[in-house]
């Protein structure tokens, strides 16, 4: 059974349509990440699910109930915001119990739930402090705690870690993942533009661009079998290499051709029947390019070497264009050196040059 179901939803700001007939089903207990560049509509979608934004058309179902016209508080959701949105004149305890007080929960019950959430998030010593006496990481913990006490079936996160520094972001990311595992059947919908967060947290990622869903899939699917050029380019750092060329039938099956280089595609799992002579874009992850003296593509010159500790990124080029190669950290070629690259046709992605869709 799905806990959150967005059915043909259209959202319009004044006369501008933001979404047009968008649908999405989220299973119970699932961790869904909405990923996309800013302005892609991911936060708008989250606000529509929360009921903070009226939909113009379509329905929103939560826990088997049509909540399209319900107030946010009646939807069984909790939400965590990027700016924490803690009430500045209340202390942590009051912040966490505000929603329960509004719902007229009996006092002992409020105290029990606040204590439990505070313990889970290790913020018990902070309960009597005011938000301005807390650090960024502590504030976000409190914000998560405020969501926790609501005992909601669905948690909505709107870029909760974007205001934190890198180290805290990593810590809290792991904590959120742990929390999801510990809560068991709680569904989480998480909006971010950070692909690392998306890859590490999600059961399924929804990649969005220009108010449209580009691909829905597990992190593995998104990473290894991107549905189009946008997804391929947006997910992964350093970015996937794109090489423009065309397909040609060479007796022993289809091959990819660019300049005088070719790559036999005998093992490539086509999902759309290709035609010979078609213009295509070959996508290769930097880590799938291998430096090997027995490689099939010789004649690349090293431009720049970026040592990153655990691995090294090598920018190299030939007459056709430039590619990035990710290799182990110990390998440090010098600029100007000539390299031969090896690549495996089963690990590449092919896209139609005109539509950008995966072949």
């Amino acid at each position, binding site marked *: 059974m799905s806990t959150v179901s967005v059915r043909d939803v259209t959202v319009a700001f004044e006369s501008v349509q933001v979404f047009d007939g968008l649908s999405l089903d989220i299973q119970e207990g699932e961790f869904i990440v909405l990923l996309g560049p800013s302005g892609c509509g991911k936060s708008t979608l989250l606000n529509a699910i929360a009921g*903070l934004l009226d939909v113009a058309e379509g329905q929103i179902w939560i826990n088997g109930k049509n909540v399209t016209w319900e*107030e*946010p508080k009646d939807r069984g959701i909790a939400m965590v915001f990027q700016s924490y*949105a803690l*009430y*500045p004149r209340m202390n942590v305890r009051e912040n966490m119990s*505000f929603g329960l007080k509004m719902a007229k929960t009996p006092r002992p019950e409020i105290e029990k739930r606040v204590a439990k959430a505070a313990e889970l998030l290790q913020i018990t010593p902070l309960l009597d402090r005011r938000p301005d006496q807390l650090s960024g990481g502590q504030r976000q913990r409190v914000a998560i705690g*405020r969501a926790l006490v609501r005992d909601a079936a669905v948690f909505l996160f709107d870029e909760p870690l974007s205001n934190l520094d890198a180290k805290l972001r990593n810590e809290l990311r792991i904590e959120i993942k742990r929390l999801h595992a510990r809560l068991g059947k709680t569904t989480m919908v998480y909006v971010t533009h950070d692909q690392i967060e998306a890859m590490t947290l999600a059961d399924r990622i929804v990649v969005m661009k220009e108010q449209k869903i580009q691909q829905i899939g597990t992190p593995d699917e998104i990473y290894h079998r991107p549905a189009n050029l946008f997804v391929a380019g947006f997910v992964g750092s350093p970015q996937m290499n794109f090489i423009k060329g065309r397909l040609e039938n060479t007796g022993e099956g289809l091959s990819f051709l660019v300049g005088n280089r070719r790559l036999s595609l005998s093992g490539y799992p086509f999902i759309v029947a290709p035609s010979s002579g078609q213009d295509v874009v070959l996508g290769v992850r930097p880590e799938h390019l291998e430096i090997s003296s027995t490689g099939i593509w010789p004649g690349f010159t090293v431009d720049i070497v970026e040592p990153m500790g655990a691995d090294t990124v090598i920018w190299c080029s030939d007459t056709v264009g430039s590619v990035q190669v990710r290799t182990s950290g110990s390998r440090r070629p010098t600029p100007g050196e000539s390299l031969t690259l090896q690549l495996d046709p089963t690990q590449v992605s092919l896209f139609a040059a005109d539509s950008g869709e995966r072949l």
Partner: protein
Amino acid sequence: MSTVVPQGRRPQHLTIGRIGVYAFLVTAALFFLLPLWIMVVTSLKPMEEIRLGNILALPSAMTFEAWAKAWSSACTGLECNGISVGFWNSMRILIPSVILSIMAGAINGYALSFWRVKGANLMFGVLLLGAFIPYQVFLYPLVRIFSLSGIYNSLTCIVLVHVIFGLPTMTLLFRNYYAGLPIELFKAARIDGGGFWSIFFRVILPMSTPILVVATILQVTGIWNDFIFGLTFAGRENLPMTVQLNNIVNSTQGERAYNVDMAATMLAALVPLVVYFVSGRWFVRGIAAGAVKG
């Protein structure tokens, strides 16, 4: 060639230009303080001394007689009860007017910036337009409306007038301040189940201290200094201090009592003065807080 190695704090030089600037500032300050000085010294002199004409001189025989007279026995037309009557009238007008107009402005600003009411921008525009139309245009129609509804010449009437005419500025002030608060706070409160009033009183109002101070200062001084509304709408029983002051200064029998006039004027100016001195720091801070975003 200078042999001094630049190091640490840059040395400060007192240049001729700077001395000129300070001289100008001090002169300007003295110039603007002069009227206050004359008022204070005149109010402390007996009439015999004033007749001598040395208006800048300190009183040789200091007396608070003029102040006492101004407060309790100066004549405002036929009655001779001093300006104290006007003081208490002004207070009775001021307190409800300030509280009600600020509350109305705060609620308006809150609704306009957070609840996205349909036609909110149009409503706000019309409200602001009202602030630019001269008051005199409203006087006659308002007098007719109030006399038809039977509340003309009463405390209710004058308070209502102050609330109505305070709305545009108060709404503008609060709307701009609230526009600067993060909208996510409001969203969080809605998810927590707050309604229109509970979000306003429990979340938004507690965060409004700086702008409340600004609004209070603006309204206290504005309403205290009002003359024309008080004269037109308050009725004989409730004439505010400003009107009483005018009556004292203008109704002279025989010799003009300059010392009493000065004392009465300063008594009338006391409330706004106190408000400025007490809250000047807050005032500047709040103005800035309200002005940054909007």
